[in-house]
């Protein structure tokens, strides 16, 4: 099944990091998750741009957290969730990757 929009590598990582928290993830949660897994540090600017781009493609949505967190100095917090379309895109990408991987286990060890 062809996906109408292409899912980039970083976009895929970001979506997976958002999914890591069942109740939705803040941008900082996503950054922490990616920093822990990836061998390099994620650029903050790139992360925000990707979040907004992926949201534009309809794969992410966000809501504002209730209540005031003192550490944020009164600024709001966005909580991101992956939309059903996003899940579908991820599943499609996964299927493509698995297909590509199959039969290569011996070569790659």
């Amino acid at each position, binding site marked *: 099944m062809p996906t109408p929009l292409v899912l980039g590598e970083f976009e895929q990582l970001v979506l997976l990091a958002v999914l890591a928290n069942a109740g939705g993830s*803040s*941008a*900082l949660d996503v950054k922490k998750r990616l920093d822990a897994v990836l061998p390099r540090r994620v*650029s*903050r*600017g*790139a992360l*925000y*741009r990707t979040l*907004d781009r992926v949201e534009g493609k309809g794969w992410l949505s966000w809501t*504002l957290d209730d209540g005031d*967190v*003192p*550490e*944020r*100095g009164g*600024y*709001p*917090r*966005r909580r991101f969730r992956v939309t059903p379309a996003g899940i579908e895109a991820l599943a499609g990408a996964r299927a493509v990757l698995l297909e590509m991987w199959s039969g290569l286990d011996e070569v790659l060890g």
Partner: protein
Amino acid sequence: MKEPPRWAASLLEGVLPSGVVGRSVLGDLREEWSGRRPGLGRDAWYVAQAMLLALHYGAPRLARLGKRAACLSALPVAELASDFRLTLLRLGRSPVQLALLTFALGLGVAAPATMFTIVAGITRDLDLPDPDRLVHIGAPGRDQTVPAGWLLPLLGAADGLAAVGLFSSADLDISGAGAPPHRVRGSLFSDGVFDALGVGAAVGRVLVPADHEPGAPPAAVLSWDLWRSHFGGDQSVVGATLRVNGVPATVVGVMPPGFHFRYASDAWMPLHLDGEDASSSEVEAVGRLEPDATLDVVQARALALVQSLRSAGENVPPGQGLVAQPFRYRMIAREVRVMASAMVLLVSFVLLIACADVANLLVARALARSHDTAVRLALGGGRWRIVRQHALEALVIAGLGGALGFVLAAAAVDAFERSTRSFLAYWMVFRLDLPVLGFCAFLVLVAAAITGLLPALQSRRVDVHTALQTGGRGSSGYRIGRVGRWLVAGEVSLASALLVIAGLQLRSAVNNLRTEGRFEVASILTAAYELPAERDGGSVADFNRGVLESVAGLPGVEGAALSSYLPGVRTSAPRRRVEVEGTGYARPEDVPLAHVAYVSPGFFDTMRTDVTAGRDLSWRDGREDPPAALVNETFARTRLPIRAVGARIRVAAVGSTGDGDATGGWATVVGVVPAVGMAAGGDDDGSGVYLPVAEGAQRSPALIVRALAGADPSSLLPSVQAAVQRLDPERPLFDVGPLEQKIQTSRVAESVFAVLFIAFGGAGLVLAVVGVYGLLSFTVGQRSRELGVRLALGAPRWRVVWLALRGAALHLVAGIAAGSALAAAATPLLAEALRGADPLDPAVYVSVAVVLVGAGVLAALAPARRALSVDLVTSLRSE
């Protein structure tokens, strides 16, 4: 709570998408910042992240804007880009010159930007509704409180005021509701103050009339910061009962963030005006004008009040009555505001001087290139493009200078904020925000216009024929006028005057240190507590001794002592009249003053100084043994020249009868000690006497605790606090901190002043060097043909150099002379800051002259070398 650097946050906010998306990004950054370890590193991290993010969000927008502008104006983008590259290459070829130019302009931008920020901060209004309708009523002058009785008639019928109330300051010891006991600065408000200020509570309510009724249960309102820091922002604190100064009080509300009326208050309680001594307590009044009323009505009312007080027999000295003035002028008088704005203008002259310097140097650079320019013109190059290249050069330098200036200003404002925070009112915040950034950008444009225009316009005057014929050496269209030369002389004189004053100030600091004696302040923690007036003298002495013994036994403590003053902290040991037995005094006023301090045995051990003659005080003195005292070496030398130990002295019971003001009997001097930081600076020689701490019934002594070598004294605080609270659970420690820090804080005003002069003097020096360098570069360039001919004809090299530099040397000497005279004339105005130094100290004047001549020689080195390297053959051939 501390905030991340605001200027970085506002810069980022300007670039981020508007609305909740942008604000959430700011919040993320703020949250991560607050999770890091406090300190400079954390702020630097924030600035770096904010800049990176701003770049990330701003760059695409800028690129789009640039493309659109280029399309619209049909600018020759490729040509501009190549000009830009050429400019960078040219500037990069002489990095020292570029650094000088950047630094000069950086200083030129930083000085007015800093001043602008400081003035904007000082003249900022209170963050309250309609601050211009707030009126202050009190005594004129510095201390504006008056007895409450004077102002009471205002409360009933106040013409022209919609609301009015009285207030005063108080230290409040707060404990309970899960918070450890601590002391906060507070204010007492009568009914009407909150109404006049026009501010409500964020949680709960403010004080209401019922709280001020006689016999009403005590109510307290907390500041947002106190609520967050000590009560964890817990809503249930509202309604809870705390103990305030030993009395139960109910928290009725929490004020919104940023409210600390009147200077730095963290709690507010009712001011009761019905008690016995209520009418004598010192208060001020604040009112809010009715919408259609003017200040005149209130002023007339204040005048009438004074009249009626005088006629009622009250002693109101002339000029000491009541004045009503806009609240904003209460803090910073109108004249100061005008003067501050004038200062911004004045400091902007620094920028003008810097611009003139840079313009001189750029003209010299253009002169060196005039042959090149002539060739380009001869080959058909456009004059407009040459002008544009000059302008671009100036713009790049101005941009670099502006960026440096902004960074310098940010550092200066930060230092100013930190050193003045303790004594400026809470609403005076100093931040480099967008208006300041805009001001900097404006300064950069002005600088670019001034510095770029001169060489650019002059380049149009290049005479192609002459320039080609003389090979670019010799007379050309470029000029530096007489004005330019005298400007350099003026700069030198300014730098010299500022440096002389800075030098005198250093001298004064050194002299003051000398009278302070030898003691070791490192590793010392100090803290204070206050015992209630109900305790009698004996119980105070027992408590003090108990505290001392339990603190001295704590692990990590090398020694501990009690003292009525903090060594090295100015004016903490008051001066009183001390009589020496056997000396005849005609009048009580003839008894000379000396500092008087009450210390416990072991004080001198703890301060690491030795008793130089006789013995230390002991607990037995004044109890089992006769009363004893110690005198310091200065006192012994000046008042007891023959024999100090064994003499008898008496502290006269004069002045107020405050805490520790014991009426003295005769005490025998049992020992002599070195001076231990008693002097208040200036003409005060620091002579003083020490009495046993038990004698003065010291209700509020300072604990002085020396930590074991190498340990951080602050780490002792929890155990010291616990030791005091074991004796009295309600006794908070306050004024806590390392002694070293206390000493620095007590001298902040002096050091701000000294640093200011040194900074301005340094800036003046840099500008003068750049000016001399630019002037000499130009002169040598202008006269290179003549110098070459002289060299070719066999003139000695030193004469050629002297010929080239003579003019500038004259201006330098004239500048130094004028500057020294200026400084000597200005010293009487600065007498207060220069106490202890001879205003005509030749050593200072000579060293400043030497520094300036040295700087002049340095600035002349490169041009002199150029004068000697003039190519003989070329200069002769061009004849």
